[in-house]
């Protein structure tokens, strides 16, 4: 068969529209994930009996349930239960954001726990109050350790944005699928977006591995 790459180029405006939707979904989910993830991590580390249980249950729930199930449930049930009108883009992005929060909370916690206990004790012994202790001693060291898994999770999130095509959000994957159907050129469109995702995710995945390697061999 022949490969009609021109048909992809002719339809690039729709693919770019799709790409922007993908970017929006990623940014919304990432923002929710970072804010909620930090809050859940704080609850988990607080040591308050009720709070850490709630945080642990949240993490287990969102890590054990398939993302697709959460997205579909949110899209079909929330509007009926709460009498809301929310777009698929927002429902799906919020669902992904809540999942992201569960994973990020664990990454944050692992980073904070990896800071040597001596550092924390030294800061306390020097009489540092809560805020400078976290700002100048714990977080700078923890954040360096968090970067590789964060970059890695970002690539997972980017892959998960494609799930919104299940509820009709015209992100990159759904646009390509629809264009493929209209033109009967599935091979061209689907291969093109596979390459686009690869071109974005592969460098990030290499970066994450390199950073991790550097961290291990410090």
């Amino acid at each position, binding site marked *: *068969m022949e490969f009609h790459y021109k048909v992809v180029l002719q339809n690039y405006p729709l693919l770019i529209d799709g790409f922007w939707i993908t970017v929006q979904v990623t940014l919304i989910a990432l923002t929710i994930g970072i804010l909620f993830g930090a809050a859940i991590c704080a609850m988990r580390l607080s040591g308050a009996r009720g709070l850490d249980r709630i945080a642990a249950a949240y993490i*287990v*729930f969102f*890590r*054990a*349930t*398939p*993302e*697709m*199930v*959460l997205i*579909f*449930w949110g899209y*079909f*049930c929330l509007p*009926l*239960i*709460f*009498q809301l009108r929310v777009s698929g883009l927002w429902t799906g992005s919020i669902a992904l954001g809540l999942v992201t929060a569960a994973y990020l909370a664990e990454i944050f916690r692992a980073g904070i726990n990896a800071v040597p206990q001596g550092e924390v004790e030294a800061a306390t012994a020097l009489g540092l109050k809560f805020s400078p202790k976290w700002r100048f001693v714990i977080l700078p060291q923890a954040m360096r350790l968090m970067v590789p898994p964060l970059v890695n999770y970002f*690539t997972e999130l*980017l*892959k*998960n*944005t*494609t*799930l919104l*095509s*299940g509820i009709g959000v015209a992100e990159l*994957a759904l646009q*390509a*699928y629809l264009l*493929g159907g209209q033109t009967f050129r*599935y*091979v061209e469109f*689907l*291969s093109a*977006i*596979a390459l686009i*995702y*690869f071109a974005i*995710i*592969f460098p990030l*995945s290499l970066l994450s591995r390199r950073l991790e390697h550097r961290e291990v061999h410090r």
Partner: protein
Amino acid sequence: MDWSVISNFDFAVIWRYLPALLTGLWNNILLTVLGFIAGGIVLGTLLAIGNLSRFAAIRWPCFVFVEFWRSTPLLVQAIWMHFAFPVLSGLQTTPFQSGLLALVFNVSAYCSEIIRAGIMGVPKGQFEAARSLGLPPRVVWFKVILPQAVKIVIPPLIGTVISIFKATAILSVLALNDVMRAAQRISSYTFKPVEIYTTAAIIAFAVGLAITIAGSKLEARFRQNEA
């Protein structure tokens, strides 16, 4: 908040269609098992060995395959397998076959990295000793290296099962009769989306939770045996 949705919750419809939802869920479980064994263990091990080969002609194709399947979304891989692959190969595949194929390749790429790390964790002296004894490559791999790598590899491999289970729900985009596709069909037929999707979500979560708990118990046991 519309309380009538909750007060009018129709349990009869749930009972009537629960078997259909469970049939869908069974497909998710079947795909998880097949994906883990065929992709994670069999193809994953072959790719890991290929990736460590001395010959560039074997190493490079394995590397490209693994990186490509790791760096693209499963949903794109699945629709590519179902709509583009038959055009290229001339083979007609059912949604289950194309979904399974995409899942197996995707899982094999992830697991081959875990297995590769496990093989590299076997002390180098073991390779050297086996080779200097004049053992043929097949014996070196299957009698010396892999049995030791297995111990290192099992705990992280168990951890991938929950990811595979979650990934199987993505294959519902291919009209493969998994739990989400079953829920979609039933709810558009009965007009009871809240009941059906909530039930589907609960049973999917229950299986996910069971996998998580069983996985961490098994992992703990293997780590204990090692120590």
